[in-house]
Every structure is written in C-alpha cells, then in structure tokens.
C-alpha cells in the first residue's frame, strides 16, 4: 500500500504545482494575451472598418458588461465625441456553428457603418463566400432601429444564393449588434468617454 500512497502523492503534488504555476502565469499574462489577440485577430478588421479614425480604436477598447455578458467595443472618437463604434457578436445558425461578425455602427445616423466576418467555419467555397466584404456591403446604411433580417425572413438583405444558412448567421450577428447598440447606446458612450478621460 505504501507504494501506491507514494505514487498518488507524488503525482498529485506535481499536478498541483503544475496547475498553480500555469494558473499564475495565465493570470499574469491574460491582459497581454487579450491585447495581442485583439491586435492580431480583430486588429486588421477594425482597421478596415474604422478606417480614418483619428484615435486608435484598439487602444480605446472598452469592455462592457451588460445583460450578463462581456462585450468589447471599439470606438471612433472625433473631437471628444464618439462617432462610430464597432463590436463583435456571434451570429447563430451557420452551417459550421456560430459566425463571428464585427459590426460597425454610425452613432450619428444610427445606421450600420460596415460589417466584417472575423471567424467562421463555413464550408470553404460555399458558405465562406458570405464572408466576402463585397457581399457584406449590402448591410451598409441599414437603420438599426428595425430588425435586420434576410429578405426571405421578411427583412431587407438578400441572402447569397447557395449560402443561405451562412447569410442567415451573418444577418443574425449584425442584428444582435444593432439591437445591443440600440439598447445601450448611452451607457456605451458614457463608458468610452469615461475611459478616455
């Protein structure tokens, strides 16, 4: 029995130390990792969407905890005012699971400013075509005060033929962003400016 006790003890202790070390490392590095992730994963998309912003939207990102979830918001601040914001939402109903959509909203006109897909697992060459920026142009200028849906669901955006499910997921992602902005616009702006100050 002695041998087994020793085995269990040694293994457990090693595991515990390993876990402690890693947990510590993770805690220490998580902020930096998140920044790196923003910079390398969302960075290019944000730069494309919010092209021409005088501030650095990545640096001015705020994390807003509302409705029980954390949402990262990237602002376009001009002359002390938040002109446009970009935020990432998961669109449900894709062929390969969620489609992650980055939606930029123009707060002055309350219309969609631009849409990009940041992550998807749609079939290459079929569903993936819906992530093409040319197709995504169709969302531009849509007002956020009404539900954004595909035409086949009684909405305003045409689905990409052959990629209906992917299109649906994107529309869902954009809609979620729009609804979120519509609901929390004031809170969001307040937080952004607080951070900026």
């Amino acid at each position, binding site marked *: 029995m002695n041998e*087994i006790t020793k085995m269990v003890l040694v*293994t*457990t202790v*090693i*595991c515990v130390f390993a876990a402690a070390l890693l947990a510590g490392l993770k805690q220490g590095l998580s902020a930096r990792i998140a920044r790196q992730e923003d910079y390398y994963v969302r960075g290019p998309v944000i730069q494309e969407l919010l092209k021409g912003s005088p501030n650095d939207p990545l640096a001015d990102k705020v994390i807003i905890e509302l409705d029980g979830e954390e949402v990262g918001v990237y602002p376009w601040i001009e002359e002390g005012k938040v002109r446009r914001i970009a935020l990432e939402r998961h669109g449900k109903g894709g062929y390969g699971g969620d489609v992650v959509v980055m939606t930029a909203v123009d707060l002055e006109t309350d219309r969609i400013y631009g849409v990009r897909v940041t992550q998807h697992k749609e079939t290459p060459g079929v569903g993936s075509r819906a992530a093409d920026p040319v197709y995504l142009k169709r969302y531009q200028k849509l007002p956020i005060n009404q539900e954004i849906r595909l035409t086949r669901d009684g909405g305003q955006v045409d689905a990409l033929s052959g990629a209906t499910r992917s299109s649906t997921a994107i529309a869902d992602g954009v809609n979620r962003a729009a609804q979120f902005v519509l609901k929390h616009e004031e809170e969001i702006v307040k937080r952004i400016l607080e951070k900026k100050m």
Partner: protein
Amino acid sequence: MWTAVLIMGGIGCVAAVALGVASRIFYVKEDPLVNQIEEALPGANCGGCGFAGCHAAAVAIAAGKAPPNICVGGGPEVGARVAGIMGMEVVAKEPELAATDCCGGQRAAEKFFYNGVQDCRAAQMLFGGSKLCGHGCLGFGTCAKSCPFGAITMGPDRLPVFDPELCRGCGSCVRNCPRGIISLVSSTAKILHFNRYTECLAPCRQKCPAQIDIPTYIEHIREGRYREAILTIKERNPLPLTCGRVCPHPCEEVCRRGVEDEPVAINHLKRFVADWEMNQGKHLEVPMAPPTGKKVAVIGGGPAGLSCAYFLRRLGHEVTIYEQMPQLGGMLRYGIPEYRLPKRILDWEIEGILRLGIRVRTEVKFGDDFDLEFLRAAGFDAVFLSVGAWDSRRLGIEGEDLEGVWDGIRFLRLFHLGEPPEVGERVVVVGGGNTAIDAARSALRLGAKRVVLMYRRSRDEMPANEMEIEAAEAEGVEILFLAAPTKILGEGGSVRRMEFIRMRLTDPDPSGRRRPEPMEGSEKLMEVDTVIVAIGQSPGIDFVREDKLTGQLRVTRWNTIDAQEETLQTSLPFVFTGGDCFTGPSIAVEAIGAGRYAARCIHYFIVEGKIPPIPSRQRTLIKDSLLEHLEGVQPVPRVHPHELPVNRRIRNFEEVEHTISPDEAQREANRCLRCGLICYNRDVVEALIEEQTPSEAAAVS
C-alpha cells in the same frame, strides 16, 4: 487559480490511484530480463524502431529478435547499456548463429513472381546476367553492414562469411537480408533437419545416406577453412576419420562432374580434413544445446549407436551406451581390418564423441546382463536399440562344421580380440561383399599363399566396392566368378577339399534381375585348407525373451527388429531402433545417418511426446537434379592418393591408402562444380568476376 489547482490535483490523484490499483490487481509477471532492458530504454514509445513501443522492443531484444542498438530514440549510450544487460544473460541459452540457408526450390518461388519463372532463376531475370549465387545471395552486403558485432564480412566472391565467434545471434542480418535467405540456426535445428524434396540439393547431398552437406564442406576446404569444414561434416557425421577411410562413397557415383569427367574425390577430401583435425591433436569444440535432463540408453556401440548417442548428446540429453564387446565401434572395430582402418584412429574418433559427456558400459550383453525392465527402472526416457547384424548366414551345405571353416565376421573379429586366426596355405573365401574382400585380403596378410574369392554371380553384380575389388586383385586375390560351393570335404575333422559348381545367370526376370543357376554336371574339386564363408549377416536377436518386455518387440521374417519407417519406433513406443539390426547389413554411413534420424525421433519423443513427420522427406534422388550432359566442364585429373606398394602391404596390416596433401585437397576441392551453390553456368560467372575485379580495385583506390 484554486479551481485550477483543485482540478489538476484531482485528475492527477485519480489517475495515480487508478494506475496504482490497476497495477496491483492486474499484475502480470514479467521476465526480469525484459524489465531490465525496458528500464534502460528511453520509454518514449516513439515506434521508430519498428516495434510497438519500448516494451515490445525490450521483449524482442530479450528474445534475441532485435539487436541491442535498435533504439533510435536513445542514441548510442542506450544501445551500449542494453548490450551490457544482454551480454550478461545471453550465455544461458543455446547460441543461434546466422547462416545463409537458401535451399532454392519452392522458396524462391515464394519470393519472386517475375516473368512466370518460379525458381532461383527469377533472381537472374530480375537482375540480369549470370550470377554467382551462393545460396541465392545477391551480394549486396546488406547483412555485413547491418551486423552490429562485425561478424559478417563479404568474402572474395562477394558472399557473406559468418564468423561464429563474433556472431551473437541478434538477427539483424536476418531482418535486413533483401532476399530473406539468412536465418538464425541453432545447432539443434541443424541436427534435427533432414533433406526435403523442396530443397535445392546437390546430387551428392541427396545420395549420401548421412545427408552430409558435401558442397559446403568442399567449399570450406577450398577456402582453407578446415575448421568450418569439420564442423559442417560433424553436423551430420560424427565419424569423419572412419568414413573417410571405409566409406564406399555412394555420393561420388552421382557427382555431376562424373558425367563429363571423373567424379570429385569427395571421400578423400573428407578424410583430409578429418586427419587435419586429428593432427592438430585436439578435438574441435562442437556447439551443444543446454541440458534437458532427459536420459536415453543406447544399446550397441557401433556406428548407428555412436551416431545416435552423439547427436542426442548434442541435443542436450544424457546418454549411456551399453556395449557387449570390450570396446566401442561395433563392426568398425571388429569387422574392418586394420589396414583399412587403423584402430588408433578409431579410438581417437570415439574418444572425441565420448568426451561430450557420454557414459559407456562395456562388456554387458543385452538380454543376459541387463534388459529393458532394468533400463526403465534406471530412469531412461527412451532406448535406442542398435545391436547390429552379427550372425553370419550359413551356406547350408555338407561339411560346414569342419575345422578350418570360418564365418567371415568371426574371422575378422578375432583380429581384435587379441588372437589372430590361423589360416592354411590355400584359402577360399565365399561371397562377394566387402566382408568377403576384407577376409580375403586379411587372409593374404596372415600368410596364405593362394586366396580365391568365390562368387556365384559375375563381377557386375558384386556388391563390394569396386576399389576394394581392384585392391584385392592387385594384392593377388584370385576371384572366381559364377561359382558356388556345394560340399566341403574334410580329413580328420579338418577341411581338405571343396567341391564347387559353376553357375550361369538366367535371362533377366520381369524385375530385371538375373539370377544365378547352377550348371548341372559342372562340379569340380579344389584343394583347400581354410574356407571363409562371408555370404551375408543377420541381426542376432537372442535377447528377445518371451516372458520379458523384449518379448513384445516385433521381429520381421528376416530376423530384423520391426519398427515404423517414419519414427523408427518399435512395437514398444519408448524403444527405437536403427542401423543393421533394423535394415539388415549395410554400410557404415547408412548406420550413421540412421543414428541421427533415430536421435531426431527420440528427441521429439522425449521432449514433445510425439514425433512430427518430415514433410516431403527426401528419400530417393530428385530426378530433375540428375543430368545426362553438362556443358562447359573441362576434365581435370582426379587426385589419386598415395598407396603402399603391393609388395610392402601384403606382409602386414599397415594402412594401405594415404591421406592427400593440402595442395592436393585444394586442387581436388576446386574440381567441385559447387552444385546447389551456383545457379548458373560457372564459366560465365567466373569470367564475369575476373572482368569486374580489376575495375573494382581501381574504384576503391
């Protein structure tokens, strides 16, 4: 953080408990050697070695199926460590040495499916040109490169040469040989192997009753590797000195060189290496299997008994020989005259057999002094009955019991019991076998003025060796063919005259035999002082007692002991027989072959309980292997050993024939066509080698 610690600690704890408990509950005992090796291996289970993980590799290394340096992950130091572990343990088991073992035939067909050619020639089709093919070797030298112990070198003819001293039996070459013709062969496996029809066998090898690997030992002699030659012979024949002198060498009859030229003097070559060993003054060590703890009794110390005892001993069994005469050797000692086989040579040879650890009881007669019940009680697992054929057949004519009438065997035997028989001036020997010739030549040496050999058929039918007949004639023995005695007349109880009748041969009967029949009225009288009757022998089976176990032994109508052809098992399962008492009188080499076959059967019987049959066991010559014509063979004179001049030899019993010299042996060995070792036309191959050798030399320099 705490959840992380808890979760990981939990997983680790559960895993360790599960493994700990499992290793207790499901404990399987492992070979300590395997564990030791596994300990030394990296344990990364990378599979780079080709085995399923380090454990499997350790098992393979321990079993000798993988070299110690097989681990690719550990690097040299792991290899060295494993080799160290193996080095300590490897001694206990019987060494298995690498050897090329191509036997052509069907196995070649399994290896190659090219152009419909189903034999060794497929290799030629594949690689083109004539190929010197030692055992089907392609000559790449892969084996030499793969050997971790440097035991393999490529010989001058680009065939691998295995050094038994260095070979550790790791099997690396076996795995790497592109033709798959190297195998690890223990000496046990070699001893237990018998020729098969499916093998590529040179005719001499098929014909030899002891199945000696003749081409290989001639090859060894050619290369001057006498030690290997002796070991090759001794895998089949423990009595090369004796056979080298007395064997009628049936092998030479079928020698392929004999088709175009005189056959190779195989027996002289054997005698040459055997004498080489004796002149070294030391018996060569032969490989022995580890002891099995089984006991076998051998009854009769003649060639069959000696051979059986020798091979059983090499297979690891304890053997005791029981012999009724004062010394071992049987017919070899008591039936063959000194001038053909000097007894000091036989003594040396027998000593070599006994020193392997065989016990001997002499002057005990089976049936009188001991019996099967005794042997059983003494704990013998099996008995080999090889009592020989010592009873002479009788003529069945008037006057056979007169003084001066000898039976041939008794006549010859007396020489070695210290009281040479006396012969008169005129001696008649009746019979045409080797015993008759031996008796005639011996009589001459005892001082007879005139020796007549009387044989009822003609010279062509004479069973004695042609060379023996010639030697006898050269010494002055008169041979009277087509004559048979009808009456022996005596005066005062001693022989005076003999009446004989001329015979003639009938026309061949349906079986092709021509029988002798007397010519009525051709009787003649002959003055004679001594008559020696040597017309054949039969086993003396007076040991059979109704009320004993021996009574259960079945006996044939020729007075031989009955046994199953395939197993040599008599009607008593633990009693085996072989040699003259089973086959009837025959030549020594036959008995030697029978001894090994009996050893094989006894080995399986006492170790495994049943004797597996040999699939397609070769008994008769393989027809396709006998040729009527051979191209490109230039006659080369055969060696003729020096013989004692006739005037010197008939006065005494000095050995008549001498051993050939090393130069002569070399030359004679070169006459061998190496059948079975070469697949293609030899001349073309040799031209090819000569062509290639200089250019190769240039490339290396």
